[in-house]
């Protein structure tokens, strides 16, 4: 049984004369892993930016289905959308570089742990309790991604691939119901990529969340995702299960044709 999580209808984004996203409609259901593929400049990142409120829509509508009912995300700020349960990573890693790995994760928990002003500045017992609870929750997440040993290091000291994993942990710490990962395996070798993809599959199941994954290496996503969207030149070229996509004539022509 599937239930709808997010519905995006006829999204359009123009940058001056360039239409980066042209009339794209996508939807995501609860508890699924969806791939978003397409060549360079297809509009994948722009689509993520539209869905997370980072870039304002030229036109279209986005609705999120929550326990409280359907809410429109049109015109909402990124922070409000994040609070509604949508989180993301960035193609060009955007960690809080000078802060520790642990603090990076704790920052993402800001809205889930109430620590009043007076409680913190006068170090009342509640402060220590909240901090301990946050630290424990953060460490549990770090452990899943094998980051325990570097918890106290500044994020900037981490190797590239590790920074990417930390970004996923940070995104998870906001307790999202929908997680957008923009090329999480960029710069990794095929083996690391396969490991990470498996890990993403695992957390998607363990956390009961929906993950949308941008990936360049089509063959890798094929094995793990339930559904795929294929973008080209800002438009939706095809969508469906990996099987359907592989047999889709348009995709074969445009994407696999050259291979």
């Amino acid at each position, binding site marked *: 049984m599937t239930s709808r999580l997010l519905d995006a209808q006829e999204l359009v984004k123009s940058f001056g004369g360039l239409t980066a996203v042209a009339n794209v409609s996508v939807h995501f259901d609860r508890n699924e892993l969806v791939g978003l593929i397409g060549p360079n400049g297809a509009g994948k990142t722009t689509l993520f930016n539209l869905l*997370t409120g*980072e870039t304002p829509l030229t036109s279209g509508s986005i609705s999120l289905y929550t326990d409280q009912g359907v809410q429109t995300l049109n015109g909402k*700020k*990124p*922070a409000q959308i*994040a*609070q509604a349960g949508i*989180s*993301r990573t*960035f193609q060009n890693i*955007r*960690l*809080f*570089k*000078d*802060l520790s790995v642990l*603090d990076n994760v*704790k*920052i*993402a928990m*800001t*809205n889930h*742990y109430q*620590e009043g*002003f007076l409680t*913190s*500045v*006068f*170090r009342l017992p509640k*402060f*220590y309790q*909240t*901090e301990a609870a946050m630290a424990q929750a953060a460490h549990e997440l770090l452990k899943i991604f094998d980051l325990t*040993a570097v918890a106290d290091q500044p994020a900037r000291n981490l190797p590239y691939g590790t920074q990417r994993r930390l970004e996923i942990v*940070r*995104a998870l*710490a*906001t307790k999202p119901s929908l997680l957008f990962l923009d090329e999480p395996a960029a710069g990794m070798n095929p083996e690391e990529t396969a490991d990470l993809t498996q890990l993403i599959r695992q957390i998607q199941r363990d956390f009961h969340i929906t993950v949308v994954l941008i990936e360049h290496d089509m063959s890798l996503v094929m094995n793990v995702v339930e559904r795929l969207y294929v973008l080209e030149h800002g438009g939706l070229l095809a969508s469906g299960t990996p099987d359907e996509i592989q047999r889709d004539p348009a995709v074969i022509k445009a994407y696999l044709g050259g291979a």
Partner: protein
Amino acid sequence: MKVTLKSNLAWVGVMLFGFIIIDALEFAGLINTFIENMLVTIGINVILAVGLNLIIGFAGQFSLGHAGFMAIGAYATGIMTQTMSTPLGFYISMVVGMVIAVIAAVIVGVPTLRLRGDYLAIATMGAAEIIRIVINNLKITNGAAGLFNIPALASWVTVYVLMCLTTIVTVNFIHSRGGRAVMAVREDELAAGAMGINTTRWKLAAFVFGAATAAIGGSLHAAYIQTIAPGDFNIMASIAILIIVVLGGVGSITGTFVAAVVLGALDTILQNFGTVRMIIYSLALILIMIFKPAGLLGTWEFSFRRWLTKGAVTHD
């Protein structure tokens, strides 16, 4: 937990130690009014600069009007203690000054902090000028002549205690949920927003916090020096506080303390040098900026916790 307790106790020890030393020197008659004046000025400058460092170094927002908020505190005390010349009256005036400073900070901050970029610097500079001009033209503030014979309701002890208190509160804020949110905004505003941080709200929180502590500094200044005039709170006064922050290290509270002490002592020593004073002073600053552009301490902080856990860390 144990380390936390030990480190907190160590800090209490440091504060008590400082107090006892000054008190003993006072008792022995080794501190004349001149030196006491220097110590009190250092203490007030610490209060002002710690707050400004929170805004600039931790929240990453550039504010150029700190003296404006200081003026609000100073005049609240200067005016109110004329009719309420009791310690209670002094503290009430301080709270009133803080409240007005907070309101002013919200008025300046809400429209400018929504935007990314250095709009705050221009807005705060303008706001501080407006505050000064208003004070210059009001009857109740005695215009350009300023206020004299303000009751002496603050001693070096008052300044010392409030310096410790505001620093504790500020440092505790930095090492809590709010401080982390504020630093996230500094590090990457876009990523902070994407993680659900209400960036405008946290920038405003740091700015308002700094404004409130500046008002405390102003109240103490009025009640200790006993004379205030609008000219005391001009742009040069704001820049003097900024210099302490930049010299000590943007993002280092320890650095702010060191810089406030060094500059306070330098200023006092150079007083005998007449006009050469400004030249030596400026030269010293230029040299430090050339050889230590990140400030004396950069972002380094002294920490008892680090000391206490040294050697005891077992990384498996």
